């Protein structure tokens, strides 16, 4: 194993010859060595197989399947744009797209606002690792666990939150069982689960900002809010951009919380796209149609990611 690269060379070079060879190499980061190319392909072989078999091929196949009628048991037959035409007239698809967008906007806006506040406060208080550790606890548990405990706490009759609400306001809320509250409740669970995680990433970003910048700001007579608005936010932009894009992409694919907490109900009120795709594929075994929806969702994600990048870049040049 040790002499592998040397042994594979056609002629063995003496040590001094090899040294000279290396000293002459231009790329300091990657000293040339005999057999490097072969070894490189060996080293990336598992990743390359994984990429080709489980990423590239499925992507192309997914695109192909969305133009077919494919009911899993029979081979796919090409039907052109029929799936997409059907999609345009599918009320449930449009309502689930709307529900998804509602969820994304609500959860990302709320989550991001609270995460930024939490990160800034943690940073200013120089809060201990224990505090930072505790707020990421929900990130460690699964969406299933989070959804289970919250559906218990949000239960209309016995849930502690409704009992408290009734004590305070005399009214209870049908969190997971009413059309109006299903999505806000799921957003609440999702924000609860990811708040600490996002806050810690932003917190880490805050720590890279040199304190001298704030001292300069203070000397110039800026108040706390001005410094936050004019210094912290612009300096955090790269990290915030990353966090927003990741959160939006993640939120568009929410599934486990919805399935455990509401199953998409009541009356499709929380039937998010991923849920609808799942029920089409595994409830009705209509894989062609489900693939078409996946492709549509993919297109939406690309457009949104692109727009976000543009917006963030535009606002960046604004402030500069």
């Amino acid at each position, binding site marked *: 194993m040790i002499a592998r690269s040397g042994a594979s060379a056609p002629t063995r070079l003496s040590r001094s010859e090899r040294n000279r060879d290396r000293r002459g190499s231009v790329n300091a980061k990657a000293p040339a060595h005999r057999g490097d190319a072969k070894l490189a392909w060996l080293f990336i072989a598992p990743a390359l197989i994984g990429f080709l078999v489980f990423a590239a091929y499925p992507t192309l196949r997914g695109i192909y399947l969305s133009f077919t009628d494919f009911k899993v048991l029979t081979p796919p037959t090409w039907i052109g744009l029929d799936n997409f035409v059907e999609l345009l007239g599918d009320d449930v698809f449009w309502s689930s797209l709307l529900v998804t967008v509602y969820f994304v906007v609500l959860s990302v806006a709320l989550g991001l606002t609270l995460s930024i506040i939490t990160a800034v406060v943690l940073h200013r208080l120089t809060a201990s690792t224990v505090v930072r550790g505790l707020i990421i606890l929900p990130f460690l548990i699964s969406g*299933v666990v989070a959804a289970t405990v919250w559906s218990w706490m949000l239960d209309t009759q016995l849930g502690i939150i409704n009992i408290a609400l009734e004590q305070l306001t005399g009214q209870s809320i049908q969190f997971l069982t009413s059309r109006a509250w299903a999505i806000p409740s799921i957003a609440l669970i999702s924000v609860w689960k990811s708040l600490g995680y996002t806050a810690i990433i932003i917190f880490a970003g805050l720590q890279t900002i040199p304190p001298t910048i704030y001292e300069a700001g203070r000397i110039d007579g800026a108040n706390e809010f001005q410094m936050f608005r004019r210094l912290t936010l612009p300096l955090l932009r790269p990290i915030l951009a990353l966090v927003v894009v990741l959160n939006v992409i993640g939120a568009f694919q929410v599934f486990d919380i919805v399935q455990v907490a509401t199953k998409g109900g009541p009356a499709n009120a929380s039937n998010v796209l991923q849920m609808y795709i799942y029920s089409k594929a595994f409830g009705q075994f209509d894989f062609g149609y489900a693939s078409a929806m996946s492709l549509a969702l993919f297109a939406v994600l690309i457009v949104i990611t692109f727009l976000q990048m543009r917006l963030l870049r535009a606002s960046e040049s604004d402030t500069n």
Partner: protein
Amino acid sequence: MTTTATPIPVTPTPAEPAATATATVRRPSRRRFSVGRAAAWTYIVIVLIVTIFPFYWILRTALSNNYALITDPASLVPTGFTLGAFQRVLGLATPEQAIAEGGSGASIEIGHFLLNSVIYATLSTVFIVFFSALAAYAFARLRWRGRELMFSLFLTALMVPGILTLLPNFVLVKELGLLNTFAGMILPTALFSAFNIFFLRQFMLGLSTETEEAALIDGAGRIRVFFRITLPMSSGPIITLSILGFITAWNDYFWPLLVTSDDSVQPLTLALAVFKQSSPQSAPDWAGLMAATLVAALPMLVLFIVFGKRIVNSIGFTGIK
């Protein structure tokens, strides 16, 4: 992009105590009482309560009697304290007993699902981190034709979200006859992760080449250099990726839901969801559900107690890169 090439935890330099000293000198002036500080602490305390309360509520409910819960749902301590819920969940109670205590008679063989989760999460994590390290080494340290092309090809995979490959991957796994196997659950994510490769490559590019060159001059082969030098020097980011990978795999729900239908290989997340569905709709067995939830969350809580600080740092680390 990695400009600072700090290999592995270095022993604290003399500069460090000095830095903390100045910090402690400066701190008191900032630590004066102010309305802002009070508001900030109030905010943090509220966030912590909201964060932790559900965990307490799981414990409190799990230790309660399901029927007592109905009569006194707001009690802050367990009502009708009993370990019955845990016995139901662990399959230690007879179906009659379980039903008498408000359960459905269904139980989870928790040990079995726990083992499945451990196998699934451990194997996926070990494979993906190891294969990513191999590829990252080839991209960071070896010179070969096609390197840039392969790297940009791999990076395009970052753009494709899981949703597009989910259904085709399911079809593929089905065609390969791997439904209801660990291989089917693990394979699609065990070989290739664009993020891991990119992350480790960036780190390895920053490592100094001197040790490596010395070893090569001394006649060590590339493979030996990789295992004995580069891999140990990259232990920081490797642990980071392992922790985050393990958490993700442990909590994974959607993919195992697609490719498994019987409980021989199903992980705990699926068992919990099934247990929730089997709980009576009219009067759910909340005590049992919370006991199951606690057992499902326990390994992660243990991980948190052992690696808490490390996890926090890992999360921050990945964000900054």
